[in-house]
């Protein structure tokens, strides 16, 4: 089977059968696996098996996912699959918490301080930053198919 150069290089660097050597840490590899499985579930339920061009994700800052590693793992792991060539578009969301005592939102400093900077109440109510969400998929289908569908 002929592979695109990018894909071939990626396979050369990291085969999904071998431990990741560089760039992509292991948990992003597993996260990507979970992502592909979820998208595949959607895709298999489509009667036309469309060609997916973009996968749009929202990834919160307060998750265990590093977007750059995810991009790399996605490129590698989608080789030779129904997602080959699809672009991963990642929208990051900031960590925002709500302090009930102060009745206001604040931005915890990840790695430094999570409690409310004004009253020191613990971070209990996270309003944003925990997202790990597949927002939407962009896909293409040939015009004939669309007409055929109508």
């Amino acid at each position: 089977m002929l592979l695109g150069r990018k894909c071939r290089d990626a396979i050369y660097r990291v085969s999904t059968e071998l431990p990741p050597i560089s760039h992509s840490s292991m948990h992003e590899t597993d996260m990507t696996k979970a992502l592909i499985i979820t998208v595949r579930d959607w895709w298999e339920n489509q009667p036309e098996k469309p060609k997916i061009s973009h996968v749009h994700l929202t990834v919160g800052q307060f998750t265990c996912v590093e977007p750059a590693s995810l991009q790399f793992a996605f490129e590698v792991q989608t080789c030779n699959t129904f997602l080959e060539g699809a672009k991963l578009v990642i929208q990051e969301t900031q960590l925002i918490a709500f302090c009930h005592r102060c009745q206001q939102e604040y931005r915890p400093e990840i790695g430094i301080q999570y409690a409310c900077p004004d009253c020191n109440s613990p971070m209990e109510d996270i309003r944003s930053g925990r997202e790990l969400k597949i927002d939407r998929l962009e896909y293409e289908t040939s015009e004939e198919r669309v007409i055929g569908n109508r």
Partner: protein
Amino acid sequence: MHQTFDAALGINLLHANQAEADHNRAHFDEWGISCLNVMSSPGAGKTVLLERTLAALSNQLKIAVIEGDMTTDLDAQRLRQYGVPVIAINTGRSCHLDAKMVAGGIHRLEQEYNPADFELVLVENVGNLVCPAEFEVGEHAKVALLSITEGEDKPLKYPVMFQEADCLLVTKMDLAPHLDIDVQRIVANVRQMNPDCTIIPVSAKTGAGLDSWFEWLRSQIHYTQSLQKQL
């Protein structure tokens, strides 16, 4: 000619794992089993904690262990000496257990034993402070371990794990006199993001604190059983 379409999904990236985890939990509930997911960095003392736990409780409670290990069977061998079923799951190069792997373990428990006989399943996750926090396996509660040799700042650096934990065991307390460590600071750092977590300092070596841990464990079993009665 091609047309582009959009499909709004709005589903969690870990949707597939979550569904499998819920399925596992439904099995545990049906059998009246409490399941705890035990997590920490490598070397924090998960296996020795389980050894002490099995030694103290395996004649009072019916316990099974699901043991995640990247490549070896060593931890499982250590735990089998206590006469409880230990189902080893080789995660290969995966750095955490996921719900599907644990489902495989549950399946074996079902084949080889009568699962309704058990009250507690302890899942020992792969040593890692990052990913296990995101991959639920079907547990009723999460237990995190942090050894005092790891430093006070770890809860700040790996916040998701410590935010998710229902119980935190601060381990290797017997080493405290030899280290410049402020255990109160560890507690304060965890409290910044998880005010409700039960925090128990323990030493598997001296046995200090283990009674509190066993008490917490029993409270989890009673909690699950009372929930089951409501079903």
